[in-house]
């Protein structure tokens, strides 16, 4: 760069260069501000992965001028009001646009991980649900499906005598009477189908020697693996999560029964997790022909709670007949899947192995580091031969350890690589991104600072079903829907980054 420097310029330039080189240059760039609505403000979340320091998207300006080799033709100046100007060599100034970041930008970029929360606010929120219902005029059948973990979160703030089933009845009454939903389901039957498909896939992979298989129900984990650990993708089960199985059942199976096209049903889910919004937005779950998604809108437990407050609905007041047995609306309600409050994926696999193994097996459980990381081993009772090794692994830090264990140790030399290859690995891992699993999801109700105590209460409430639904009925119906031409599998793709981390090449 040719220029006449004054000492002052030199010092400025030196400081600037030094800041750039020492990687402290971000002080000079505008930080990205994201607006969180009250209900969506995340607090006290152990395992939340926050957006990157600076989204790199704003600095990707297309520059039509071809710069001279080795010569900087423009610089960026900041005026007193904080506006950014691009100044070219001919001293003409152009005010730079404020960066606009869309969900697609976020999905296509590995600059941040799980920043879905801030981006999805406007496209999937309870306000969007209310707006849709207000403008609907009976054109689409409004359906809402609720996760049992969300019901548990609501139940935990009520007296312990109130069961999950009673909470479901109260929420159902609210959704029908106050909001105008035609059908209110819980999502456990979809999970029943998902678990069966999951077991079927495990068996396929075992026969093809493609183990371990890792759970696919947690969108935080999927998102993280796609962006940061693409080497894990072949191991992740391709079975749809309960939410997306529900999407398929509502839009296509029920749609056919009701003689409705997919876009004539408006499907909302209530989830313990923000990242479920991201999952529902995946292009795999969108029908181009009808321009509709399998799940149109995902709201969190917190947002459902907010809607009840806004409408003056008191969940502590019983509704008529809430303890009576009732005829199921299409799907069996509140199926308990014993194992974990995050969906019992490992337990389903364990049950399957025990049931199908030719000789009796004995199970043992070992806590690896904390309650969020447990190993399950199945041994032949007589011979002692280990036939299955699985793990339950929750939370970001444990997830790192599973990734290390399952990974093949690329880049290692000599001794350690050999040792790693000799180890017996896992056959199955139930992975969840949140510590304590889905009952502690980012979308759950929050209570004060004592997050752990509160999570225990939610866990307790989760298992107070108040009703036992015959699994036989569920199995029969599951068999029926799984015999239809419905798609219960999906796919993943590595998000390659051309812009990882920093725009500066070192």
């Amino acid at each position: 760069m040719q220029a006449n420097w004054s000492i002052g310029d030199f010092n400025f330039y030196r400081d600037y260069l030094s800041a750039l080189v020492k990687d402290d240059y971000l002080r000079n760039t505008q930080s990205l501000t994201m607006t969180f609505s009250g209900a969506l403000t995340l607090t006290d979340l152990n395992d939340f992965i926050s957006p990157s320091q600076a989204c790199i998207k704003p600095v990707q300006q297309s520059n039509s001028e071809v710069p001279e080799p080795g010569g900087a033709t423009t610089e960026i100046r900041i005026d007193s009001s904080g506006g950014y100007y691009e100044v070219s060599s001919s001293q003409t100034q152009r005010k730079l646009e404020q960066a606009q970041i869309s969900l697609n930008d976020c999905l296509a970029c590995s600059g941040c991980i799980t920043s879905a929360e801030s981006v999805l606010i406007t496209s999937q929120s309870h306000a969007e649900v209310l707006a849709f219902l207000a403008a609907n005029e009976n054109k689409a059948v409004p359906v809402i499906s609720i996760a049992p973990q969300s019901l548990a979160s609501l139940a935990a703030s009520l007296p312990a005598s109130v069961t999950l089933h009673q909470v479901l009845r109260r929420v159902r009454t609210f959704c029908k009477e106050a909001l105008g939903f035609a059908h209110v389901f819980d999502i456990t039957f979809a999970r029943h189908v998902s678990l069966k498909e999951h077991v079927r896939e495990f068996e396929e992979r075992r026969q093809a020697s493609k183990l371990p298989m890792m759970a696919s129900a947690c969108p935080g984990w999927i998102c993280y693996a796609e962006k940061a650990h693409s080497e894990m993708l072949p191991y992740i089960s391709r079975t749809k999560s309960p939410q997306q199985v529900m999407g398929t059942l509502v839009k296509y199976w029920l749609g056919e029964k009701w003689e409705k096209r997919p876009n004539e049903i408006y499907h909302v889910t209530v989830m313990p997790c923000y990242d479920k919004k991201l999952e529902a937005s995946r292009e795999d779950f969108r029908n181009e022909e009808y321009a509709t998604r399998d799940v149109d809108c995902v709201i969190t437990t917190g947002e459902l709670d907010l809607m009840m407050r806004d409408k003056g609905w008191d969940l502590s007041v019983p509704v008529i007949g809430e303890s009576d047995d009732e005829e199921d609306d299409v799907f069996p309600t509140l199926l308990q899947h014993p194992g974990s409050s995050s969906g019992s994926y490992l337990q389903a696999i364990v049950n399957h192995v025990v049931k199908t193994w030719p000789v009796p097996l004995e199970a043992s459980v070992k806590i690896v580091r904390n309650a969020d990381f447990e190993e399950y081993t199945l041994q032949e009772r007589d011979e002692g031969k280990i036939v299955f090794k699985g793990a339950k692994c929750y939370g970001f830090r444990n997830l790192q350890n599973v990734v290390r264990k399952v990974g093949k140790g690329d880049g290692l030399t000599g001794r350690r690589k050999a040792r790693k290859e000799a180890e017996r690995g896992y056959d199955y891992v139930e992975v969840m991104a949140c510590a304590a699993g889905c009952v502690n999801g980012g979308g759950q109700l929050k209570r004060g600072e004592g997050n752990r105590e509160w999570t225990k209460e939610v866990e307790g409430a989760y298992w107070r079903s108040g009703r036992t639904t015959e699994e036989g009925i569920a199995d029969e119906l599951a068999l029926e829907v799984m015999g239809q031409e419905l798609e219960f599998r999906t796919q993943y793709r590595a998000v390659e980054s051309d812009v990882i981390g920093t725009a500066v090449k070192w």
Partner: protein
Amino acid sequence: MTSYKIHCVAELSAHDDRVWDVSWNPNEPLLASCSADKNVRLYNYSRTEAGKVKVSLYHTIPTGHTKTVRAVGWSPSGKTLATASFDSNIGIWEQEDGDSEWECVGTLEGHETECKSVGYSNTGTLLASCGRDKTVWIWEVLPDSEFECVSVLMEHTQDVKCIAWHPSEEILASASYDDTIKLYIDDPSDDWYCFSTLTGHTSTVWSLAWSPTHHYLASGSDDRTIRIWQRIEGHKWENVLILEGHERSVYSVSWGRGNGKAAEGEEYIGWLASVGGDGVIRVWEVTEEKGKAKARKMIEKKGSHGVHDVNSVRFCGREGWETVLATAGDDGIIRVWEIAG
């Protein structure tokens, strides 16, 4: 008052690009350095019979890191070296036996972007790292160079520049572009947590160093000052001194035992060295009078790396070498200095 002089005893121009960090092996006569040229270099040092310090290049580790190696740190045993790289990985290096090559026995992945600093705890059972992704990671060191992630701390709101383990307790400190210093301890029934946030610096905190007496923490900042924080009680740390003089960012601070003496009625704490963008090495003698910290500037060495920034300063911790320190500069040079009274 003794007057001190500093003189350069060795100049090592072994790197092809800016040198970011140096680290003295706690047990062996070895000095490690790392650079933007992606290599780590190891040097032997000894004294001649006349007492002259001799330093010579002994080994180069082509790390395989794909970007700058930003920091190096030895385990307390001196048998393992950790590297932190802008390629977002931590490398773990060991020799099978004393004569063999240094080989990579493990990599720790997890940071999303540039890794800035790495360090072993005093017992060597824990390893911490930090980076531009605002996180601080703690790993448990298991046998056979195996590691398990025990915590990912997301307390800082900006780039984390540096971590430093307390010399005798499991207390971890981190310093950030968010101008704060955070202190962490383990809750054995749960996870590590931040028990204190030290505020006062008005710009990026670049570097941290615990005193040899364990009850002071020094921090160097882009605000051109060094702050000294004292342990008032248990887990309460307070700023007790602000050292001024640097004309540009303070990039690195190091606390050594030195061989100074306290005046009557005072406790001797140690020597504190600082370097930064102004190219000056400053050394303070820190003492304590009735529990109150005092610092006296004993050395001001201008142009220590010519016109270049000095990125790192480290006192040697080994016995008999307390007056020796090393600096690393943007000029690609490592200088070893000795302070004499």
